[in-house]
């Protein structure tokens, strides 16, 4: 009940801001203009859309829009969560939340879901643009679903890190900066390590292992795997004797990282967390004690 109250308030506050309307407009403009630019370029090069080339154009347009959407998500998601908690402190409403029945879990979940709802709304708003691809064909429904999963997982992990930063860092500007740094690293760290490893000795096994782990947690690799799934399959990762497609492995990594960041946030979000936890355990113990007589 406390969670839904917080979520309702957060959604009301966020969606009423004029800024959010402008974010949606800018978001769709970027995607739309890129799509139109791509089609005009293809038109100029190929002299019209004919024959089997149509499906290739469809797949290429879809890939372009998907990568732009991924970059936009990584760019926008931290903004919705990286000032969630320290913003309350700055607005001097944090003490009032602490005085309520709101648990650490409800507080964080409400803030995270409200922040992610904004991102999901952006993704939903872009669906009509993506549907243009179906005029050309070349994209399977499973590809669309797996791509959507990569988007949601990326928003989840980047958003949760923003939430974590807002929990442990006092100043909203610093937490936003740190959250963006993480987002950029989440996106590009694998590629940096990959090129560095290629430039030096190729026989270094530890580097290769690190590189592979980074590859599993890389959203670009995951998205790429969903795009090439319809074109003859992709290389898989071996995890506990299971061969996992990169987008699936990425989903699992995102879930694990999100859970860890969320739990860490829950530890730090309220003062005297340990005392509260012990008090809760004591209360629980009393409730489960057999009554005498």
């Amino acid at each position, binding site marked *: *009940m406390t969670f*839904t109250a*917080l979520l309702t308030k957060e959604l*009301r506050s966020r969606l009423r801001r004029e800024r959010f309307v402008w974010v949606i407009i800018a978001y769709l403009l970027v995607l739309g203009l890129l799509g139109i630019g791509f089609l005009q370029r293809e038109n100029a090069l190929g002299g019209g859309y004919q024959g089997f080339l149509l499906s290739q154009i469809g797949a290429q347009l879809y890939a372009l829009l998907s990568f732009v959407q991924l970059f936009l998500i990584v760019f926008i998601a931290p903004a919705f969560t990286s000032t969630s908690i320290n913003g309350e402190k700055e*607005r001097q*409403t944090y003490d009032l939340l602490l*005085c309520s*029945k709101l648990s650490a879990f409800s507080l964080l979940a409400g803030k995270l879901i409200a922040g992610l709802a904004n991102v999901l709304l952006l993704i939903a708003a872009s669906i009509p643009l993506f549907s243009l691809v179906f005029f050309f064909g070349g994209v399977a429904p499973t590809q669309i679903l797996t791509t959507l999963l990569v988007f949601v997982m990326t928003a989840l992990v980047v958003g949760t890190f923003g939430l974590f930063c807002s929990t442990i860092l006092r100043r909203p500007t610093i937490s936003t900066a740190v959250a963006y740094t993480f987002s950029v690293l989440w996106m590009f760290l694998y590629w940096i390590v990959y090129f560095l490893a290629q430039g030096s000795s190729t026989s270094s096994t530890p580097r290769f292992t690190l590189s592979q782990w980074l590859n599993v947690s890389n959203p670009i690799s995951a998205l790429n795997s969903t795009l090439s799934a319809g074109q003859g399959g992709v290389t898989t990762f071996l995890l506990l004797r299971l061969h996992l497609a990169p987008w699936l492995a990425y989903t699992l990594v995102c879930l694990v990282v999100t859970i860890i960041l969320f739990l860490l946030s829950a530890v730090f979000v309220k003062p005297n967390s340990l005392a509260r936890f012990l008090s809760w355990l004591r209360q629980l113990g009393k409730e489960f004690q057999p009554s005498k007589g």
Partner: protein
Amino acid sequence: MYNRTMIKIQHVYKQYRSVHALEDLSLEIPQGAIYGLIGPNGAGKTTLLRILGALISPTMGQVWYDNAELTQSPGAIQRKVGYMPDFFGVYPDLTAAEYLEFYAGIHGVSRRKRASIVTDLLELVDLTPKRDVPVETLSRGMKQRLCLARALIHDPEVLLLDEPASGLDPRARVEFRELLRTLQGMGKTILISSHILLELAEMCSDIAIIRAGQLVIAGDVEHVTHSLGGGQQIEVRVLERAADARQLLKEMPEINNVSHENGDGEVIHAEFSGDDQSLHRILDALMSHEIPVVSFAPRKAADRLEEVYMSITEGVSSI
């Protein structure tokens, strides 16, 4: 006057690194009292209220609400307490009703009861006409009343109000005071910190004076003022023969001390201990000696609180 102690503070210390915000502070707050915390800035009033609201823990010492120790069950205590900080914690995008509905929700008030509670509280704080107005457009006094309504949303037994009347215009202060009296009538125990001493004296049944984290004195207003050498006082203004008037007053058994100041005519201050009959005898004596009295004004202990406060906080920085 009161049946039981609602809050018992026992030897509480609070230290922030090298700063001692509270030192060995012990206090008992009776149930149903309007209890004033007085002290200069930095005396530790807000720290004490934040400890009582379970927002921070004391470095040492214990706080009891009825029979429950604060650090053992902070969550349960917070449900008993309505806290109003010395700033407006408001969400500018919400209307007054939405603001209260949100706090009702996070205090666990069932969805069924929320609407009626919000309506009742808006009526109590006289904000019904502003129900659907965004919070950011409310005046300071209205925001103050809205914050009080928020503190009452879960029907707490205890209200902790940190500087609730600061920045209010005189009319808003009077309305706020009336509102607190109404709440006292509803059985709430109210703890207020303030610098506005006269106001505290008017609305509080009990006060505690804190200086540099330490308790100077606590008790009902009359007791505190008397204990600090501030018994009742009479202010007599005469047109002439001030020396005769002073002499006459000094000879009366009810008068303890006589002092005077030159002003528009002459003003004599006399420390006095007695009842209304004694006051009548003093005035009668002045009149029978044909002393030209312009005004004869007994000052109650509460009216003298500011003088007492100034004397005991002398030399303590209020910055």
